[in-house]
């Protein structure tokens, strides 16, 4: 029996809303086009910075690993909002992703095109976005995804049931202890109320050692080497089949800068892992699902996510502003769709991206710890104000077309 590493990288950038005021609403319909030099809401600028620091060097390392080790594999999800921005601002970066997928050993994972929370508000809109993403992935990468992930790895029984019916062979979420109980995330599971679909759950301790703690000099395990990390994985012995190492792709070079040694870690890890035992290998998500049997069922009646200590949606929907803002978006859904105006519909969808609601989160801002999470805005209130002004403009555009909502 093999023992596998399942690397899964989430690759995403939202369309950030510029400083959009009540004076813009009704007169300037572009929300995402901040051209200000070096501004945190200048999407082109942010994309080029992330590409230089993360996407290009990380893709180079992955390509090197794929060329060196015939059984090196990984999985990735790339949102539609990022693919659009890459096509517009950095086609050469998109080409480097295409090169990885073309090896046949990097699997693309399905999700909503706009990285939205539509599943929880509108099933029709959710399905439309999943279909859009599927089409985009086929157009850009020539592959059809068979494993699904929902925004922020949000997950519950309903979602698993939906994904099963939709024909996916797998779905992924957080390996959260209250859900797993005594069980380990290092196995394949089956969601309750389903038959054919399988569930892979993130090993958050081992994942976060890389994604969050890698450069933390106050961490007792700093510095983390590939050698040491392989020892930790080995400690599970045979009591593990698959190590689900799920993280944001921006971990490499953006969250952990190059000078922390993160790229060297990634580059040298496969050598240590493969040499540590003969049966150790890498698999894509769907390979792991095909290879290993489900050991048990997992019941998740309440929504979990991969975020914060609470592993819930409160970072996106925890306060009244966030709830009102997202409700406002889905309240106008029918009119937006009926308008048949594709630019309007696309703008409305870009406003659904979960990042907008995350920027309105107040639960950390309170402590003056404004750097506890990343936001391009000075305050959650500013994020809310920009968002609602853009929403007012969407309503204005609808009204111009005779749709009064």
């Amino acid at each position: 029996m093999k023992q596998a590493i399942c690397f899964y990288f989430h690759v995403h950038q939202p369309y950030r809303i510029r400083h959009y005021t009540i004076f813009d609403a009704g007169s300037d319909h572009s929300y995402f086009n901040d051209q200000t030099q070096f501004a945190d809401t200048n999407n082109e600028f942010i994309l080029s910075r992330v590409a230089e620091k993360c996407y290009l060097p990380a893709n180079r390392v992955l390509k090197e690993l794929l060329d060196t080790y015939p059984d090196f594999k990984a999985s990735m999800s790339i949102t539609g909002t990022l693919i659009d921005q890459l096509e517009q601002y950095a086609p050469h970066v998109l080409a480097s992703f295409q090169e990885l997928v073309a090896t046949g050993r990097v699997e693309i994972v399905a999700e909503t095109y706009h990285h939205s929370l539509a599943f929880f508000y509108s099933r029709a809109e959710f399905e439309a976005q999943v279909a859009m993403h599927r089409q985009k992935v086929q157009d850009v990468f020539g592959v059809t995804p068979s494993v699904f992930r929902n925004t922020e790895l949000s997950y519950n029984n309903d979602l698993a049931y939906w994904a099963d019916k939709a024909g996916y062979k797998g779905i992924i979420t957080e390996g959260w202890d209250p859900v797993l109980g005594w069980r380990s995330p290092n196995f394949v599971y089956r969601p309750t109320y389903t038959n054919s679909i399988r569930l892979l759950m993130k090993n958050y301790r081992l994942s976060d050692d890389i994604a969050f703690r890698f450069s933390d000099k106050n961490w007792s395990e700093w510095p983390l080497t590939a050698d040491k990390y392989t020892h930790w994985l080995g400690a599970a012995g045979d009591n593990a089949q698959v190590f689900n190492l799920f993280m944001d792709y921006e971990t490499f070079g953006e969250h952990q800068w190059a000078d922390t040694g993160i790229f060297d870690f990634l580059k040298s890890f496969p050598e240590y892992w493969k040499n540590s035992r003969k049966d150790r290998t890498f698999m894509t998500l769907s390979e792991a699902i095909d290879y290993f049997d489900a050991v048990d069922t997992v019941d998740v009646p309440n929504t979990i996510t991969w975020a914060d200590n609470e592993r819930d949606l409160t970072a996106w929907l925890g306060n009244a502003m966030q709830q009102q803002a997202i409700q406002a978006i889905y309240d106008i859904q029918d009119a937006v769709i009926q308008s048949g105006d594709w630019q309007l519909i696309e703008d409305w969808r870009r406003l659904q991206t979960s990042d907008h609601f995350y920027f309105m989160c107040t639960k950390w801002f309170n402590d003056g710890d404004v750097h506890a999470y990343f936001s391009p805005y000075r305050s959650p209130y500013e994020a809310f104000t920009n968002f609602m002004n853009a929403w007012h403009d969407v309503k204005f555009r609808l009204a111009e077309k005779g749709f009064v909502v």
Partner: protein
Amino acid sequence: MLGWELPPHNSGGLGTACYQMCKALSKQGVDIEFIVPYTASHDDITFMKVTPALPVTARAIKKSGMAYDNFKYTYVDGTVKEVGMMAHTDNYVKAVESIAELGEFDIIHAHDWLTFRAALRAKEISGKPLIVHVHATEFDRAGGKSGNPMVHEIEYMGLLLADRILAVSQLTKDIIVREYDIPASKIEVVHNSVDIDAYEELDPNNAYNYLARMKQDGYRVVANIGRLTVQKGLYNLLLAAKEVVARAPKTLFLIVGSGEQYRELLQLSADLGIAQNVLFTSFQRGKRLRDAFAIADLFVMPSVSEPFGITPLEAIIYGTPTLVSKQSGVSEVINNCLKADFWDVNEMANQITAVVQNDSLRDELLLQSYAEYVKLSWDAAASKMIGAYEQHTGLVGAR
């Protein structure tokens, strides 16, 4: 301690700040004699001695007129005379001199320019160290201009000759360094705070019946409380109000306070065509003051230059979130408030409109800012001040 006013005989935030600060200092064992330039009863103050500074020839000094303007002297011979500000500070100096000669104190702590000349004389006579505490400079009062050169000169002498300077905010410290050429190392920032116990419970029947009724019909109220003077930036608030009312017609602006700009602002609201939406109430205290804070959905402090600004904290106490100018010290202690440059009328209008159109923004702002506010206390400020006392008197542990 040399001060200018204490509540209830105060005309603004300076008196409130001095009162609450002394209370906290006294709690930590500091023995204070507070010298005010008028005669009035302060019987309710038990934690320190309040002494009126009277020239030998005078029997009583009453404040008269608006704000910091005039004083009515009653002399020993029975004559009564109105005395202007400069003559009054001359008299304050003389009265303080006679107190200083007794020398029954370890350190002199003086608040703002009005007391600086007296403080310098007290230092000269007694040889005791002097700490000057800056709540506002002439630069602030003049709305970011140099202001009255005589006042500027008095401030400069006080700042130069003091042993240590306490500033109510980083903003004020920066102004002292920039406008008065004082080395930054001599200045310590001691943020003002609020004493929750000093505030009375709200009465369920708000004094502003009309506003309460309008709110039931979907109106929202934006309030400012402060002197109607150039420093407070109300001109720009009214310009913003016009933009807000154009987009959210059910918005009312409540302007509480008096001052030399009153007629100008009234005229402006009419010229802008928003007179129906702007209500002037003149100066209020007590229940009407509390209720003004409480009735509002948003409190706006658009000051051109506000060394600290206690009113936004008072608004939070009474359940109203705030928008403050970035040119204010209070924005250094509260994160969960809206902020705009005082000159950025459109941005101010943008943010006010967002609040009056979205109750969820108002409610979340309040919830979060209240959580920050309850962590504030004068105790930390008092400890810093005592640290400065110890450093300059050598009386470590004297508290």
